[in-house]
């Protein structure tokens, strides 16, 4: 915020002085308008993450509050050498990769349906916004009840064995979790892709059509390459979002039972259920680092540009 007063050229010619004053006033106004939001974001995310880092260096268990002491990086050592952490990272990655991949394909299909709709665009748009509006916990319950061995309709469907009890097995539970995640978030993916599709000029398709390119060729040679920036941004947002999956797992397999524990569930269990703020905070910081790694991977390796999101496009 000190920037507002430092950079104004002091010895500007008199004719330009008025402009400088005005620019100065504008800058001051801008910072005053932005200050509350900026302060809120720093206080509620910046400070707690710093505090989490501080806690992660302590031995600090709420069950033994007097036993608090500085232990350096010992908590990180404990987490990184435990098989639970690595198993949970693996589970989280599986859920993330599988759901985001399915969402990309499904989202693209829905976006194409909406983009090329002959009729019925309104009902489709309305329908896909329903999953978006529904509380994740509610959606998770809906899918959990659908697969319930005694009362769910899925086991009653033809072609599905009455003994099929996906919620009693690890892979079955992961499948239901992925299904719930995909159902809830595909609309968001579809809308982002639809916005990207609108940027592909129709003339290119017409020209390719005249040259004899098939529908498939046009999709893979024209639509996909031109949509790459939109696809990457959608993938970045959804990957980060899926990596912190919590609500679905918490409801479908409470506590991350049957090997469905994800990193967010692990963090919750250690922090809140066990009250081990030291060890739990180390997990929190490691999850934070994973998220940064994913974001850096998308931006540096895949060349995702978030300029449009920052309003610079």
């Amino acid at each position, binding site marked *: 915020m000190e920037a507002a007063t430092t950079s104004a050229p002091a010895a500007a010619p008199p004719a330009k002085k008025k402009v400088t004053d005005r620019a100065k006033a504008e800058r001051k106004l801008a910072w005053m308008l932005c200050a509350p939001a900026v302060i809120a974001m720093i206080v509620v995310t910046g400070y707690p993450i710093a505090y989490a880092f501080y806690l992660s260096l302590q031995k600090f268990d709420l069950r033994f509050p007097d036993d608090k002491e500085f232990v350096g990086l010992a908590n990180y050592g404990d987490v990184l050498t435990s098989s639970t952490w690595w198993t949970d990272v693996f589970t989280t990655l599986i859920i993330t990769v599988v759901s985001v991949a399915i969402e990309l394909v499904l989202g693209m299909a829905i976006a194409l349906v909406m983009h090329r709709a002959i009729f019925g665009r309104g009902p489709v748009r309305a329908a896909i916004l329903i999953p978006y509006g529904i509380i994740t916990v509610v959606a998770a319950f*809906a899918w959990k009840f659908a697969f319930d061995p005694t009362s769910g309709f899925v086991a009653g469907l033809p072609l599905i064995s009455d003994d099929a009890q996906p919620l009693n097995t690890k892979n079955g539970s992961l499948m239901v979790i992925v299904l719930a995640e995909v159902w809830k978030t595909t609309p968001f993916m579809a809308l982002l892709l639809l916005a990207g599709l609108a940027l592909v000029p129709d003339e290119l398709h017409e020209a390719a059509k005249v040259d004899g390119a098939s529908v498939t060729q046009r999709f893979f040679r024209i639509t996909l390459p031109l949509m790459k920036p939109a696809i990457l941004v959608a993938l970045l947002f959804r990957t980060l979002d899926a990596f912190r999956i919590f609500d679905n797992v918490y*409801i479908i397999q409470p506590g991350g039972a049957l090997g469905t524990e994800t990193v967010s569930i692990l963090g919750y269990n250690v922090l809140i259920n066990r009250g081990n703020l030291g060890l739990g905070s180390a997990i929190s910081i490691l*999850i934070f680092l994973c998220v940064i790694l994913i974001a850096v991977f998308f931006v540096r390796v895949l060349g995702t540009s978030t300029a449009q999101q920052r309003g610079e496009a």
Partner: protein
Amino acid sequence: MQHTNRERAAWSIGILVVLFYALIPVAWIAAISLKTPEQVADRKFYSGFHLDNYEVIFKDDMFIAALINSIGIAAIATLISIVLAAMTAYATSRLNFAGKTVILSGALAVAMFPPISIVGSLFDMWRAVGLYDTWPGLIIPYMTFTLPLAIYTLSAFFREIPWELEQAAQVDGATPFQAFTKVIVPLAAPGVFTAAILVFIFAWNDFIFANTLTSTDNARTVPAALAFFTGASQFEQPIGAIAAAAVVVTVPIIIMVLIFQRRIVAGLTAGAVKG
């Protein structure tokens, strides 16, 4: 436009598949909510129209309290978030100043921030300062985590406003206040309203903060209350009651989404930040 009957048939099937996909879990949870306990195991989508489960939840003090908490907390968080975001969006879309990019990038970083990374800290901090299990204890994180979404959506809308009209009105003799309230406010209102819907849905949906930062009816919101519902025996989830409660909190959102679908789509794609 000429389309063959085959094309029309293919599209109709496509539309039906999408509708089916979107509605099946909603239909199932509504179906369960209308069953009697004896019918729960019949696996049917329709077993008559019984409102027993709704009677149960509307007599349940915990659910009523959660409903009031959810509405109040989400509404206040939305109001504050929109006011702060509107100020920021006005500055970043209309004023020239160094630091604009830093603010917008910072907001983008907050949008990607994993909540689990700070719930432990907030849990400890809130208990120390007396915000644990209170409305402000949830309003503060909701307001903050919805700021990026609100700022991006509002900036996108504000960039489209023809601000010259404000000066034009003043040239025509309007006072600056009149120019603002009679010209700019009506132009900005749709965008502000859209951002408010998206922010409200976000706050209404949250589970992780509601679950970790509350412990009683004092501030527990509906998503957390649903997870804590227990039936006759403590280890059995009352499926019917949960389903009825789920329908009660879902119907208003569905109605809102259907009425404002165009705006929500415009807002989501303009802001392009997850809600």
